[in-house]
């Protein structure tokens, strides 16, 4: 209870920024505690006791390094079929992380799912189906005519006497 209140107090003290703001002003934000809200992309990349997640807030994307246990609440990851969970990440930003070969990253101290991800509904428009049907019919006809023409030409060439 006390730790939650402390965490909430800490979060209220930190300015929320976009990923692009951090990267564009990496000198200013280097080694400072930042807070971002972004969608988790693809999947958790496990590294022993720790893990990487990649998050995208629509302005840019960044890697977040965190203990594997923190990823337990993540359920939906962003890809073509899903809008991933939106998370609030608080952590230390590095513009040249010595631990990770000079990478720009965030070492998360807390991660909270603020919006559950959803499955995307990619409805197939009727016009696409009709257009595809017309296209396939026309291309098959064209291919057949092309083939037939080639056969006729080949056959007729046999009966043309050389001059």
């Amino acid at each position: 209870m006390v730790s939650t209140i402390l965490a909430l107090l800490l979060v209220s003290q930190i300015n929320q920024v976009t990923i692009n703001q951090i990267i564009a002003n990496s000198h200013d934000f280097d080694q400072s505690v930042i807070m971002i809200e972004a969608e988790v992309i693809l999947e958790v990349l496990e590294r022993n006791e720790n893990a990487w997640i990649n998050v995208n807030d629509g302005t840019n994307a960044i890697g977040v390094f965190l203990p594997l246990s923190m990823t337990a609440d993540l359920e939906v990851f962003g890809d073509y079929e899903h809008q991933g969970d939106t998370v609030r990440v608080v952590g230390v930003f590095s513009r040249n992380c010595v631990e990770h070969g000079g990478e720009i990253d965030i070492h998360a101290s807390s991660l909270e799912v603020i919006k559950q991800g959803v499955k995307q509904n990619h409805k197939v428009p009727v016009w696409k189906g009709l257009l595809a049907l017309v296209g396939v019919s026309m291309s098959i006809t064209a291919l057949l005519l092309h083939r037939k023409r080639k056969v006729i030409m080949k056959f007729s060439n046999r009966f043309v006497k050389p001059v």
Partner: protein
Amino acid sequence: MKVDTSNWGSVCYYTGKSILIFSALFALPIFVAISHSDWNSALDFTISMSISIILSIGLTFYGEQKRKNAHNLSWRHGLVVASFSWILLSLISAIPYSLSGHSLSYLDSVFDVMSGFTTTGVFLIQDLDHISQALNTWRHLLTFVGGQGMIVLAISFFVKESGSAYKFYVGEGKDVSLVPNVQGTAKWIWRISLVYLLIGTTLLFIQGMRIGLNPINSLFHGLYIFMSAWSTGGFAPNYQNILFYHDFMYESIGLVFFIVGSFNFGLHFAFIQGKYKEFRKNIEIVSFFVSSFVLSVFAVVYLSNTGIYSDSISLFRRVVYNVLSAHTTTGFGSVYAQQFISDWGGLGITVMVVAMLIGGSACSTAGGIKGLRIGIIFKGIYNDIQKLMKGERTMRVVKYHHIKDYILDDATFRSAASIAILYIALFTVGVLLTSLSGYSLIESSFEVASVTGNVGLSVGIIQASMPSYLKLFYIFAMYLGRLEFISVFILIGMFIKGARKWFQQY
């Protein structure tokens, strides 16, 4: 140069045939879409495939009626087939992008396709992290096929047109003959690429699993990253490019394949034949290693002095990696676009611009002026200085080794210098145009060197919001850079001549 417009029929006929063969490629994303029960994407690609087939048969039919001499295609028409096919294939291949709803305009779609075909790697596609597997397959397939050459692909299937095939092949910026006939050469190019595809994808698949990707993602990402690396393309399935994986080994596998991919196909073939000494003697390899070493040392010394990258691992992963990515014209970026401007400074960016303009090897998947030409130009200048110092009466025969020994004559030197001058001229025009659009000279130089050299790194100018005339210029610059000018100039000449004739008639 006299431009003959009378044989448009043959141009249309062969262009139609090339497009028909290319149309088969749509089957792969259709298969991927169906296997993912993604009916939307399956329809996008089916519509595109149908348009491609109908257009190709229409062109073949029209060409067959109009062509005057079926068996004697001139050089200029051969070159035009290559450049004309590239334009039409770019327009057709852009259709699935537009149908997917991830492009803001058809121009943006064509931009992305040209970037893929020319193995550049910059993109305007929106919301990349949410595009379908089928569209991602298409993006990387285009860059893979573009790297080897669309005409090389078509020639592999041309059975009767062996006489004309070599002219198409040259028109696509390739000139090495691996075996005496051009079909055989085209097939060898594909054989070499497919063997590497198998090895590269397997290695990346295994490493992908080790870094935490699930087996399906690991397989697709391995395939995509290999296709991009080998073709020196620079596309990646996610927005963060190679930074998505956070792994030194994954980056290193990519690094090995994009360096190998930037080598001449002749060199790969020499290896297959057991001619290992070629690696040491070849002028392009010598040129590549010397320039890579010098440029990397410059960048490392400068950036370590600025204190941005403090240890050797960081210097290798962030500096040497990007210099090599630029030099091989790959475009995998292990730093963010903004970092080039904020961290790398004037000298760092100049090193990158030089690396991007030099580019990889001739007759490889890479772009740029090419190591062979740089080697020839340097050797020619050195010879001229020697001649002046030793007196004109001394006769010197200068040779260079590129698969076999050649004598460096004036014509070879002039040809190499001409292409280099054309690249520099294109780069200069691009920098002026971009600067006039409100970007700084240093940003403009980086971005234009990237598109002219078919690299794909960016400092952030290339965005969907940039002016349309810049998009058009960059499309043209990528196209010119990849086809190495001549075949495009002849196509433009034919169009102008045809238009003039048409105006005179009416």
